[in-house]
């Protein structure tokens, strides 16, 4: 299977690989997937408490090129958005941006789940209720 140029680009030059201090109150961490499924994504956001804007985002991913590209792209899109805006990121926009084939759609779903998990982690740390999301379709 050939990868799209955008997937190759994110894989070769991933954006925002790294780790934020998960103990910090302004950092939300989402860890999704499972080693036995062949992909695990950890996505972190650092939120400005005053404005609610995501100042920084980092990821680390165990998975195929599409999983790495999906998480790299997600961190790029997260930076500068407010938490509420971040919630509107949909897995299908990732699929379209990266030209993912059908067998790789689950990578984009995982990225969307990681964003939601990170936001809920941030909310929990700051005394907000967790947002309930509908079950993902592709799992």
């Amino acid at each position: 299977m050939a990868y799209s140029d955008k997937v190759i680009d994110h894989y070769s030059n991933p954006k925002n690989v790294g780790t934020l201090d998960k103990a910090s109150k302004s950092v939300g961490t989402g860890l999704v997937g499972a080693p036995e499924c062949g992909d695990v994504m950890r996505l972190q956001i650092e939120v400005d408490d005053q404005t609610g804007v995501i100042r920084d985002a980092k990821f680390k991913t165990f998975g195929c090129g599409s999983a790495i590209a999906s998480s790299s792209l997600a961190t790029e899109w997260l930076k500068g958005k407010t938490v509420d805006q971040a919630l509107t990121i949909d897995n299908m926009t990732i699929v379209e941006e990266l030209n993912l084939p059908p067998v790789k759609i689950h990578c984009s779903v995982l990225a969307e789940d990681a964003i939601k998990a990170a936001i809920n982690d941030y909310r929990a740390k700051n005394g907000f209720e967790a947002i309930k999301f509908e079950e993902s379709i592709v799992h």
Partner: protein
Amino acid sequence: MLKLPVYLDNNATTPCDPRVVEAMVPYFYENFGNAASRNHPFGWAAEEAVDYAREQVAQLIGADPKEIIFTSGATEGDNLAIKGVFEMYASKGNHIITATTEHKAVLDTCKHIEKLGGEVTYLQVKADGLIDLAELEAAIKPTTILVSIMYGNNEIGVVQPVREISAIAKKHGVLFFTDGVQAVCKIPVDVQKDGIDIMAFTAHKMYGPKGIGALYVRRKNPRVKVTAQMDGGGHERGMRSGTLNVPGIVGFGKAAELARLEMEQDSKRLSGLRDKLESELLKIEESYVNGNREHRLPHVTNISFKHVEGEGLMMGFNKSIALSSGSACTSASLEPSYVLKALGLGDDLAHSSLRFGLGRFTTEEQIDYTIEQVRNTVLKLREMSPLWEMYKEGIDLNSIEWAAH
């Protein structure tokens, strides 16, 4: 000069040896005849070529030429052997013994047999990929008609104790079939010494063309028969009808002759290169060889690099190195290799595996290049892997409740 891309997927298929192609060419042109045309020179030339190739193929495995049935490849051979024995020996019984690490051509044929009312025992393998001989013997019952255990495994290269297996089968009056695809031409295979009753093998894994293979069917002690699965003109002693693929057979014969003459030096060179590749890659922290390292084909190694995913790993060099992974990230099922899982490997290690299959045309420079590329990519991806970070922090990954996916 380093020749790119590097081809290390020789378990999937091998390139044709130029000497093989050269031998085949006249049989597309001036000697195009049908080997079954008994009454003119075109037919005679084709028949003579087939007879000669049949001898070349037989000689490689210590068989009599009359015991070679040409097929379209090993998948057909596996089907013909198992289904053919099941039908031919129906009055004797309906039980077949095989193993969970067999090729799909054997496993799916066995599933078909079960649908037809046959009974199949699937032996588990030990952690090193070898079957347990005591378990094999214990599984034999009065209705057992066939033991089907492969010679060398395609994913991990493990070589089963074929002589011991055939001795057990013989002792109980059960036929022994082996899928010899990966072993023939790589290590000495001798149907007499090994006590093999039926064996499938194919040309394209031994520097011959695709679309031609053979089934060895023993004629003496005991005389074995299989029911034809393809009916027609009664070619190949009635066991496989269909006009013979003369150019393919000629190429197969040449490939077998070259294998017989060059196997020893080829294997020695390849195991040297394989060992270099393996020992260098094992210097990477948390890397493991899958399967028994002593009883193994000389040209294969299967290595898991913990906490990096196989397909992601291959992407780091897939334009310059061709190999395969036990990770099945591309398959719809997302299931990793069933062979690696049968060894008791966790899914995480199965997802992290690469299979290196060296071949006659692999060079030392290519191996050096591969070592460097694989090492760099593993290290790069580990920097990106949350699992590696957790492992380095001393977190037990099994203690984490992973979201069901």
